[in-house]
C-alpha cells in the first residue's frame, strides 16, 4: 500500500477564486489520479496525472478548469479554478499499483471543498 496525504483537508472558498490541493505520497508511484466525489455520491475520475507531461482529462473535465501538475513521482497538485458552488465536493488523490493483471488503487483522505 501507499500512504497518501492531502492538503488542505477542507476549505471554504468564495466563488470566482481558485484553490490548489496538494497530494503527497510516501513512495514513488507511476500512476496518480484525481477524483471528485459530490455529496452522497460515488467517485468520478477527473484526470490522470502524468509525470513530465500534461494530465489526461476525462470527458467533462478540462485543463483550464482543473489544471494539474505532477513534477515528480511522489507529488501532484490539482487546482480548482474560478470556483462556483457547483464545485463543492470532496476531491480525492489516488495512486495505482499493478498486481498481476489488475490494478489496485489507494486513496488519500480527501479535501472537502465548500464554495459559497
Amino acid at each position, binding site marked *: 500500500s501507499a500512504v497518501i496525504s492531502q492538503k488542505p483537508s477542507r476549505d471554504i472558498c468564495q466563488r470566482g477564486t481558485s484553490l490548489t490541493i496538494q497530494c503527497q505520497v510516501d513512495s514513488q508511484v507511476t500512476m496518480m489520479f484525481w477524483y471528485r466525489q459530490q455529496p452522497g*455520491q*460515488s467517485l468520478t475520475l477527473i484526470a490522470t496525472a502524468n509525470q513530465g507531461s500534461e494530465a489526461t482529462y476525462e470527458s467533462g473535465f478540462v485543463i483550464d478548469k482543473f489544471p494539474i501538475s505532477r513534477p515528480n513521482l511522489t507529488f501532484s497538485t490539482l487546482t480548482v479554478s474560478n470556483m462556483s458552488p457547483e464545485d463543492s465536493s470532496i476531491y480525492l488523490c489516488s495512486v495505482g499499483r499493478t498486481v498481476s493483471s489488475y490494478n489496485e488503487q*489507494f486513496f488519500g483522505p*480527501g479535501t472537502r471543498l465548500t464554495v459559497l
Partner: protein
Amino acid sequence: TQLLEQSPQFLSIQEGENLTVYCNSSSVFSSLQWYRQEPGEGPVLLVTVVTGGEVKKLKRLTFQFGDARKDSSLHITAAQPGDTGLYLCASRTYSSASKIIFGSGTRLSIRP
C-alpha cells in the same frame, strides 16, 4: 461507456442481520474490486476478484464474482455498527487498463 450499477442504493438494517449488496454491468469485467469508505476518509480496498465464480471471504464479508464476470455481490453476515459506510464496487476501464471506474455506491447504515 462501461457502467457499474449497484443495488440497493441505501440500506438501513438492525445490528445482527445479514445483507447483500450487488454490482452489475452489461460488460464483462477482467477483475472487480470492492471498497469501503467511511465519512471523512478515502475509500479503502477490501478485495479484488479476478476469476469467474470466485468467492473470497474477509471475516464476516463474503465476496462473489459471477460466473460470466458481469456481476458481483458482497454479503455481510451478522452486521455490526462498524460496518456502516459507503460500499463501492470498481473495475478498470477498457480504454485504459490503468484507470479504475467506480460503481454508483451503496450506503449502508447499521442500527445498534
